[in-house]
């Protein structure tokens, strides 16, 4: 019986390949110990997990992009796609590690500690990223809007996970972190379809106010850029130091803002010149009052004390 067992063991040893990778590498060498059949199978599983995962994530992200681009604004769509990409990458990584038979529980513990360290290091980045979500939910602006942030005005050029980029009107690129946008006062100039152009006028006190009102409303009615509705605003604001101050407001479509602005201001100047209405400038009125003036008393001469002998 022992003899038979010994023969069977010898046969089995003879049948099994010696060394790593079907016996191509020496069994006792470093490469032989590393590149075993088992390791090769694990490597194939890892590669498959990565390749198939990448394909699946690619398909899903493409679908999400197509759906969101049609139905949402560029900012929301971009953020959703980015989140889907990051989630997909994380899933691929976890799947690949699982295929490599890496104990994920230990890795997750280490990842927790690393996460805390990274959290401190990437505080600003994370803050910007999360701020991006709040900005999306508020829908304050989108690509193509003209916005003003802390004195900087420009067209929203791109909206990214961490920042937005503005193109100023003199063609400079400004990067504004999302975190700053959450804290700052943001004015969206082109959000609504129409804007009121407020024109502060100062006219001399001898102006006929009825004629002035008629002239302003007439020129607004004749100007092609001025919207017929809402109607122009005419308001006398106060009697100022230098003349009558008034506010004249006309509504313009947001796309006609620059042309309308130039056209209306030029029309006002032309019309005032034609009507003889004068713009007031800082003036000072000096009244010369005729009054009997008493002659001044003659200066008293101070007597010098007599010099002592």
């Amino acid at each position, binding site marked *: 019986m022992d003899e038979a067992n010994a023969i069977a063991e010898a046969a089995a040893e003879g049948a099994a390949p010696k060394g790593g990778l079907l016996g191509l590498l020496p069994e006792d060498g470093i490469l032989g110990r590393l590149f075993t059949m088992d390791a090769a199978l694990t490597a194939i599983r890892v590669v498959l997990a990565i390749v198939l995962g990448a394909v699946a994530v690619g398909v899903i992200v493409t679908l999400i992009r197509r759906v969101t681009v049609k*139905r*949402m604004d560029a900012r*929301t769509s971009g953020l959703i796609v980015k989140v889907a990409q990051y989630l997909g990458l994380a899933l691929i990584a976890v799947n690949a590690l699982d295929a490599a038979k890496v104990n994920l529980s230990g890795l997750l513990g280490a990842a927790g500690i690393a996460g805390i360290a990274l959290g401190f290091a990437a505080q600003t980045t994370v803050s910007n990223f999360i701020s991006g979500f709040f900005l999306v939910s508020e*829908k304050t602006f989108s690509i193509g809007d003209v916005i003003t942030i802390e004195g900087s005005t420009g067209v929203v050029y791109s909206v990214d996970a961490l920042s937005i980029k503005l193109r100023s009107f003199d063609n400079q690129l400004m990067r504004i972190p999302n975190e700053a946008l959450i804290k700052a006062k943001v004015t969206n100039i082109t959000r*609504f*379809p*129409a804007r009121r152009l407020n024109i502060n006028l100062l006219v001399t006190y001898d102006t006929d106010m009825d004629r002035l009102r008629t002239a302003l409303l007439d020129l607004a009615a004749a100007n*092609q*850029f001025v*919207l*017929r*509705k*809402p109607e122009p605003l005419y308001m006398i604001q106060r009697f100022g130091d230098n003349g009558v101050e008034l506010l004249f407001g006309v*509504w313009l*479509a947001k*796309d*006609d803002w620059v042309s309308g602005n130039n056209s209306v201001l030029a029309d006002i100047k032309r019309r005032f010149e034609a009507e003889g209405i004068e713009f007031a400038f800082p003036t000072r009125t000096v009244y010369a009052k005729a009054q009997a003036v008493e002659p001044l008393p003659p200066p008293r001469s101070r007597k010098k004390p007599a010099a002592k002998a």
Partner: protein
Amino acid sequence: MIWRSWPVPRNEGTAVHRIGDATMCVSIEQAGDGDVLAALVRYAEDEAPGARRAPQLALPPLDDPAWSRYYMGKADHYELEPGYPDIPVCVRLHEPFRIPPGADLRGWIFSHLEAKLKVSQAIAGTFPLKKPFKTLYGSPDAGVICRYDEADFLASDEPATAALHEDPSLVAHPVRLRNSSSEPVLVEELCIYGEQLSVFGVDRRMQSERLIFAFNSSGVRMSLEGQGALPPGAKLLSRPTVSGEERFIERSFELFKAITRI
């Protein structure tokens, strides 16, 4: 009929087309191997009040920016085609009126067309036939910028209706106003989405499909109620640029976005 193909006025000065109160001038300039078509529109309201229309128009030189220019190559003809503005038209009624709950009114309103100048089926220029003023339909935060127009709501048998039908710069819209709300509605203006409408015409008379303006508690909505009764011999001169279904889907998405704030 003004809306047809016209020979290019080579060596003939300027071709003048009078369309309602607008005068459209078309001229040709030699440019290398082909020709440049130049066109402009003059409006009656720009002429001095009380002045008689001059028999000979005083036109600016062809290099003046008032002319719209288009390289037309060796083409022999250009076409004039009626069309609607590329933005909605807000027709303000001269005399606003109230319609009681449940009422269903039928009548006519007229709006101004645009002249599309085409060369070999390509649009060389678009010219409003009335000075193109704009207005805001709705509130300043959610309104729509529209072309401004004014009209009366007319019954079919009014003499004014027949007179307006003879103006080739106007298109007649058969209109039905329906108040399905429980309150009377004041009708001051009507917003027409021309992109959904066709132009049918014969001689000087232009007409669109029948429009329904349905007033309810949530607002007013324009829709089409088929072609309606067309004048005898009328043929299709211009097709809609957007189908009603497309517009419906687009509006549904807008509504969905407004509700869900996505």
